[in-house]
C-alpha cells in the first residue's frame, strides 16, 4: 500500500460543468501521475508532476489541467466536462529510478 487515496471515488456530472479530482499521498513522493482508462485503450497518461508546481503533459492532455501546490496533493481539473471524458481515472506515484507505478483506487466519472 503506497498510501494513495483518490476522491471522490464516484461522480456523475453534467456536460459543461467543471470537475476536480483529487489524489492524495502520505509518503512525500516526488512523482505523481494521472491516467484515464477506457475499454480498448488501456491506460493513457493525462498529465504528470515531478515536483511542487512542476507538471508536464501526457498523451491525452487536451481538456484537462492539473495543479500541485503541495507535495501530497495532485489535482486534476476538467474545466468543462464533456461526455468523452466519461472514464475511470487513476492516480499513481512513481518510485525508483524506473518510476514503477503504484496506483490509487480510481475515480469513476460519468458525464451526462
Amino acid at each position: 500500500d503506497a498510501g494513495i487515496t483518490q476522491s471522490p471515488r464516484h461522480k456523475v456530472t453534467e456536460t459543461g460543468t467543471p470537475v476536480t479530482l483529487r489524489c492524495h499521498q502520505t509518503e512525500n513522493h516526488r512523482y505523481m501521475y494521472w491516467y484515464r482508462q477506457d475499454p480498448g485503450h488501456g491506460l493513457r497518461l493525462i498529465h504528470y508532476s515531478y515536483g511542487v508546481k512542476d507538471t508536464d503533459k501526457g498523451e491525452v492532455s487536451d481538456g484537462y489541467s492539473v495543479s500541485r501546490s503541495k507535495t501530497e496533493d495532485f489535482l486534476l481539473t476538467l474545466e468543462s466536462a464533456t461526455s468523452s471524458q466519461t472514464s475511470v481515472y487513476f492516480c499513481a506515484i512513481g518510485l525508483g529510478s524506473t518510476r514503477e507505478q503504484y496506483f490509487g483506487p480510481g475515480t469513476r466519472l460519468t458525464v451526462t
Partner: protein
Amino acid sequence: GQQVMQIPQYQHVQEGEDFTTYCNSSTTLSNIQWYKQRPGGHPVFLIQLVKSGEVKKQKRLTFQFGEAKKNSSLHITATQTTDVGTYFCAGPEGGSEKLVFGKGTKLTVNP
C-alpha cells in the same frame, strides 16, 4: 510517438492450461514493467526487467525481456482462477519520466 503493443487482446483458458502474453515496443527500452489489474480493481506492479535477455520468475509466472530489449513476454504455467485479470506491460518513453502502457491482455479462466 513510441508505441507498446500487446497480443493477444483477450485470452480464455481452462484452469490448468498455460497462458502467454506478448509485448512489443516500437523503440528499444531501458526497462519493461508488468502490471496486473483484477476486475474492478487498480493496476498493481508485478515486476520490472532491465537487462537484455533477462528472465525472472514469480512462482508460476515467468517474465522474459528480449535480447534486443524491444519485446517481452509473460507466461503463466497451469493457470488458476486467481490469475483472472488484465495484464499490462509498460515501458519508459525515451528519456522522460513517462511510461507508455500496452492496451493489455484480458485473461479469463474457466474453472
